[in-house]
Structures are given as C-alpha cells and as structure tokens.
C-alpha cells in the first residue's frame, strides 16, 4: 500500500491535524490521536486519507476523528469517529461497518490463577464445546419462525427471559442490551434468515473468547467498584458481533444508499461512504434496522455468557454464586448513536458514528449504569490474542474532544497475507503455548492471521489515550486461555 503524503500538522505530542484545506470539500479538519512513532506508522498506509474523506460527509461537526488504533478500513478508517447533526446531517452504514455492534464484554470471577490453571485445558475444552465458533458456525438455539423479531427488539432481555443469564446482566450492558428504536420491519428476510441460524455463535476472524488474569491494577478504588479486586484474579472476555444478520443489514442499506445519494445529490469519492440524511426515509429505515442488528449482537453475547457460566461451574465444580462470574460491562465498538454533545458552546443532538471506537462517557453521565456513576463508564480494550487487554474508564476530556469516545483495540499493522507469509499457524500455536496460553482454534491458518505481530502494541495505543486524556487505565489482564473461531 502506498505511503500517505498528505498534510499533517502537529498540534501537540498526541494530536495531529489534517487541515480543512487539505482536500476540497472537507467540512471540518481531521484529528488523529497518535505519538510521533505511531504517526509515522499510520502514514505508511492510506488511513489518513480516509480520515479526510469522513470530513466530506454532510453535517459533520467539529472534527473527523481517528483514535490511535487507526488503520485502513473500507470507506471509514477503523478507529474512526464522526458526529453528524441530526437535522441536516447524514448517517452512513459504512461508518458503522458490516459487523454492527461488534463488541466486547468482560466478566469478573472469584477465582484465582492458582485455582484455574490446573484445570485450564479442561475449561478451554468445555468452553470450546459449549460456545459454537468458526466459519459458518450455527447456533444451538432453535428459534421458532418469526421469533427472531423478538430478539431484534428485546436484545439481551430476550436472552435473559429465555434463561440465558441473569436480569442484573442487563444493568451492566451498554444500552442495557436493548437499544430503543429498533424496527424489525426494516430488516430484510435474508438478514433474518441468516440471524435465525446463527444466534449464540462466536463467528471467526478476530472474534474470541478469552480466560485472562488480572496482571496490573492502576486504580485500586475504581477497579474495586467493578469487582476487580486483586492481581491474579481470573477474568473472562467475549468479543463478537451480530454475525450474518448484521452483515446483511449493512449490505442491504449500503446498496440502498448508493441509489439514494443521487436523489439527495450527495457526491463522495468512495461508494463505501454511501449515506443518506438522518431524517430521510432511508436514514430512518437504516437506523431502525441497525438497532435491530445491535440488539441481536447483545442477545448473542448474552447467550454465550450463559454457557460460559455453565462451563466454569461444571469444570470448577462450584455453583454460580461461588464462581462470582458477574458481568462488569459490555461495550459496542461498531455503532451509530443519537447523543447530545456540545458543539460551539451549544448542546446538540448528533448522530455519532463509532467504527472501531468505544464510547467513553465520564463520571456522572446519565447514560452509564448507576453503579459506575462515580467512576465513569468502563471501557474494554482487547489486545491481540497473545498480549494484554485493558479496562479503562471514560473521561470529561473525551466528552469535550471526541464525543465521548476512545480506541477499541490494538489495530492491525500487517495484512493477513503478510502475517501468514511470515508465520505458520503451528508456530503461533507453539509461541502461545510457550507463554503459557492454552489455545483452542477452529483452524490454524486463521490463527496465523491473528498473530501478535500483525497488530500494534495495545499498551502503546492505550498509553496515548491516557496521555491525551480521553480515557484512563484501570486494570490490565493477560490471557491464559484463548478460543478462536
């Protein structure tokens, strides 16, 4: 991929500006969060051009933003945040992506590394057998005809009502796992067909299930509120999304909006940026369908959570209360939301696109669970499969600068083909074994493509968000068991 030779101005050590005059049609400047070393890496590919392209979208306010895990996407960059006015701005399905509400949840446990390590192989086998994963995996849940519509409206609540999980899981899920305004009549038959077969599956690619241990606590009190009590405590992470249902919703509406752009006289350099006014019939239909896909993804992670609890109880020979498997939080990192933010000194309703970016609301914000009101919203940042993951909290600075957003992961630096050229799946498996990580993977080729070397160092990414003040690290975990689809 060619080097990007555009204009980038240094604002301070962690902020870089693409000026509005860089490209004709930019409505706002772009800002990339990165340090000197990272910014050089970022310019090796075309992702800054994608930041500039986001700034072309009608109704965008303040800045077109990129988090430090930015890398080249299709249309929008991964790590991109863009907020549009709801009265005369647009919504762009490509700015959410094909995996609508791809997200992460983390569960705490009462268990320690010493208790779990002797049984880790058995535990990983049990998890691997109880959570369907891999390409084209089909769910264990048999939905009756039409029942998927309920999943699309109720999200996590549907799962809990069916016995997958506990009511208090909903309290610690973004949007309570049930986004309002979901309209199943805007979801195509094809999307529902795909969704009916795949509920309760992990999928493949970078999706994973991870048993991890707390290896550092940065903010003891804040961590304590989340139930992160000590180093060596076992945690469980789930990373997956809306499966084929979400992909189909994105397909359907990108197609529709490519057509609608003619009607609304919107011209953009990349069809993948296709959009329609938020208030238009197309925009409203997409948002209604997108919320359905988001709810489906929450229902999906909720069902998986239930099987995870069962596996832990069975393998550790303890009841659910004793294992202490409680949901700390669940975040989405591919979504559009209607939120209120300050623009030019005034509160405004905006359609905030987060594509590979996480909401990071501060202390006291009304949209975060009461339990976390005094510490800020938990933010979950999974690293690549061999390295650390982070729990952070949102900040006031994020609210001021990034529409309450921060990064979502490590961010790729190497293409899948390049990663595979350098490494065999077997080597990656061996390397992880050497580091004491038990791996269960559907296929080895997929494993090589997700090797640590293909990603930026998540610690560096998190450190930049800390120094820029847009989120604050609370604890760090390190994997002892990984399931890859």
């Amino acid at each position, binding site marked *: *991929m060619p080097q990007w030779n555009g204009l980038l101005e240094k604002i301070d050590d962690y902020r870089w500006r693409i000026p509005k005059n860089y490209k004709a049609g930019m409505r706002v400047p772009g800002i990339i969060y990165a340090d000197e070393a990272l910014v050089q890496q970022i310019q090796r590919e075309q992702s800054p051009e994608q930041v500039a392209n986001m700034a072309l979208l009608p109704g965008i306010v303040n800045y077109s933003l990129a988090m430090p895990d930015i890398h080249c*996407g*299709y249309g929008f960059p991964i790590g991109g945040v863009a907020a549009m006015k709801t009265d005369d701005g647009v919504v762009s399905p490509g700015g959410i992506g094909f995996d609508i509400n791809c997200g992460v949840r983390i569960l705490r446990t009462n268990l320690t590394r010493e208790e779990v390590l002797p049984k880790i192989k058995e535990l990983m086998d049990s998890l691997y057998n109880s959570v369907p994963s*891999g390409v084209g995996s089909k769910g264990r849940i048999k939905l009756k005809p039409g029942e998927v519509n309920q999943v699309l409206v109720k999200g996590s609540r549907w799962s809990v009502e069916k016995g997958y999980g506990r009511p208090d899981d909903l309290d610690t899920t973004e949007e309570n796992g049930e986004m309002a305004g979901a309209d199943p009549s805007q979801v195509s038959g094809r999307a529902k067909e795909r969704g009916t*077969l795949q509920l309760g599956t992990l999928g*493949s690619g970078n999706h994973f299930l991870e048993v991890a241990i707390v290896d550092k606590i940065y903010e003891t009190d804040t961590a304590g509120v989340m139930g992160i009590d000590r180093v060596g405590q076992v945690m469980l992470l789930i990373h997956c999304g809306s499966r*084929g249902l979400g992909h*189909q919703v994105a397909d359907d509406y*990108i197609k529709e909006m490519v057509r609608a752009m003619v009607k609304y006289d919107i011209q953009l350099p990349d*069809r993948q940026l296709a959009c329609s006014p938020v208030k238009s019939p197309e925009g409203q239909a997409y948002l209604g369908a997108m919320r359905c896909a988001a709810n489906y993804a929450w229902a999906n992670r909720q069902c998986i959570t239930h099987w995870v609890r069962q596996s832990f109880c069975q393998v550790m020979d303890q009841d659910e209360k004793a294992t202490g498997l409680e949901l700390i939080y669940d975040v989405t990192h591919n979504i559009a939301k209607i939120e209120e933010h300050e623009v030019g000194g005034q509160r405004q309703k905006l359609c905030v696109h987060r594509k590979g970016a996480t909401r990071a609301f501060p202390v006291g914000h009304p949209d975060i669970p009461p339990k976390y009101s005094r510490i800020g919203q938990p933010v979950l940042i999974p690293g690549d499969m061999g390295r650390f993951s982070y729990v952070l909290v949102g900040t006031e600075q994020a609210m001021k600068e990034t529409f309450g957003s921060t990064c979502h992961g490590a961010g790729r630096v190497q293409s899948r083909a390049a990663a595979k050229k350098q490494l065999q799946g077997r080597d990656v498996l061996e390397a992880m074994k050497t580091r004491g990580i038990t791996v269960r993977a559907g296929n080895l080729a997929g494993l090589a493509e997700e090797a640590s070397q293909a990603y930026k160092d998540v610690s560096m990414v998190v450190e930049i968000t800390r120094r820029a003040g847009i989120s604050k690290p609370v604890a760090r975990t390190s994997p002892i068991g990984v399931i890859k689809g």
Partner: protein
Amino acid sequence: MKRYRLIEHTADMGLVAYGRNLTEAFANAAYGLFSIIAELRTVKETESRRLEINEDDPEALLFEWLNHLLYLFDVDMIIFKKFDIIDFDGHSLKATCYGEKYDPSRHKLKRGVKAATYHLLKADREENQVRVIFDV
C-alpha cells in the same frame, strides 16, 4: 490464464479477477472469494443454485453478486466452486452456481468473509477485470 490474484489490505483481503470478458471476470471473482473461504480442491459439484440479479450498473451488480453468494453460503452452507453466468449485460446476470454442502470430514474452511465492500470496487469493461475488497 490466471483467474485472480489476491491483493493485500491491512485489515481485510481483496482480489483482482481476470477474464476474456467481464462475464468471466465476475465468475473468477466468485471463484476467488470461495478460495479465500475454503480449500476448493476437495469440493464436489453436487449442489446447485440459480441466481438472477438486476442492478443499476456493473459495480452494483458485482457487489450484489458476491454478497448474494455469501448469503447462500451462510444459510445453506454450500461451498461454491463453479459459476456458469449467462445473459450478462453489465446490469443484470443469470447464473447457475455449483458446489457442495460443507462437510467437516472432507472440507477445510480457511476463514470467514463478512461481505464484499464497495471500497475500491471496480468492474472494468475495457480490461475485463474486476477488483473487490472483502471485509474479513
């Protein structure tokens, strides 16, 4: 003649597919797509599906063609390997696609593909080639 070549993209994968005409390039793009997903050597041609697609232009047709095949793979788990496209005019096509239902004992799936994207999508009638980036 080479049917397709893979192109590198940081997070995703793409391909350029060739042909003596655009019809053949479309068929080869589909072949390339399923080569990304599965090892096609052991896949037989025991199942078939007929498709009829109408779109506004060749790019929209390509987007829908590949995404329709991904939909069929998701719901029917058919790994396709042969694509007979007829009545191709750049805006519409009819095709019969052959493959086999996924059988874990004989087939190897390599990776999932979420969708064909519009990013850098191209259906070039002069060069008889198409380009597509997939979200994987």
